[in-house]
């Protein structure tokens, strides 16, 4: 069981609601994923513009909402976005994300830490998207974040765990759940993160842009369970050098 800020989840797969071709595709994929926590974004309401009803399918599935602050370029904007999200969705849970760089969407560590501290003091349950920086993850934990969400690779890149060596350190030092976010492009990447001891992963693009999103969601669901099972089982040590026999090295063939 995954526990974040006293709330228990059976699934260790968090999902995003972005980039799906249709509301139906999103709903079937979210259902197949087994995910219980789903991210959403905020947008300015334009008069008379038709907005897809993103919320109903998610609420119908009984999933917990995790609004994000995507679009915020600094701490001040993120705090404002957080307050709007809380008002719109009546939840104090928040995926804090501040990425001023439009090319790589990499999170700004300084603004994220400033905003996290302020939002925790306001009573938000803050889950910050951050670089795979062990020191920053400690600082975010110190100011009261409920989890940390270090990136595996840039958002939407599907590149996998490019930061794996630093994720290992973050997991080793963690005092709050570690949710590997961004860059997970295949179930094998998710399984790798879970085998390393990550508490959860967040996947969006890899599911939403698959040819069959619901089937891919199912694959991620199983990979996350599989990876966690392997972590719990305690993987054997990796050794470089001479082989280590798994069968008895008898010399019975000599007798023939």
């Amino acid at each position, binding site marked *: 069981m995954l526990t974040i800020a006293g709330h228990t989840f059976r699934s260790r797969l968090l999902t*995003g*609601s*972005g*980039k*799906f071709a249709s509301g139906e595709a*999103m709903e079937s994929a979210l259902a197949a994923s087994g995910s219980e926590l789903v*991210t*959403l*974004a*905020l*947008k*300015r*309401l*334009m*008069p*008379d513009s*038709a*907005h*897809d*009803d*993103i*919320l109903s399918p998610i609420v119908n599935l009984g999933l917990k909402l995790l*609004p*994000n602050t*995507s679009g915020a370029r600094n701490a001040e904007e993120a705090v*404002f976005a957080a*307050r*709007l*999200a*809380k*008002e*719109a*969705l009546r939840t104090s849970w928040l995926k804090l994300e501040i990425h001023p760089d439009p090319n790589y969407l990499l999170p700004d560590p300084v603004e994220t830490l400033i905003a996290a501290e302020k939002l925790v003091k306001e009573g938000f349950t803050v889950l910050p998207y951050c670089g795979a920086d062990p020191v920053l993850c400690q600082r975010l934990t110190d100011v009261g974040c409920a989890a940390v969400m270090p990136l595996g690779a840039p*958002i*939407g890149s599907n590149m996998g765990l490019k930061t794996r060596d630093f994720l290992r350190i973050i997991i080793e030092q963690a005092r709050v759940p570690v949710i590997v976010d961004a860059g997970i492009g295949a179930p094998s990447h998710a399984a790798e993160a879970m085998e390393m001891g990550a508490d959860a992963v*967040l996947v*969006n*693009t890899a599911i939403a842009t698959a040819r069959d999103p619901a089937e891919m969601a199912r694959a991620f669901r199983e990979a996350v369970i599989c990876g966690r099972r392997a972590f719990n089982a305690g993987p054997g040590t990796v050794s470089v050098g001479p082989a280590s026999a798994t069968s008895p090295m008898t010399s019975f063939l000599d007798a023939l």
Partner: protein
Amino acid sequence: MQISVNNQSIQIDEEATVAALVKAQKSQTRAIAVAVNQQIVHRENWSEHRLHGGDVVDIVTVVAGG
């Protein structure tokens, strides 16, 4: 009087309330948040909160996102 709504200048009636402004957006969703001059106006206060000329209003809703 003139106010700004989501960075666009619009004319509204004197004494108009936040509730009237939200209704005029003709939105289907209930997941809406309103801020006037960067201060959140809670849903339960929309019908009492009167707008003033020059107010800067943000109205946001929820969309898909990762």
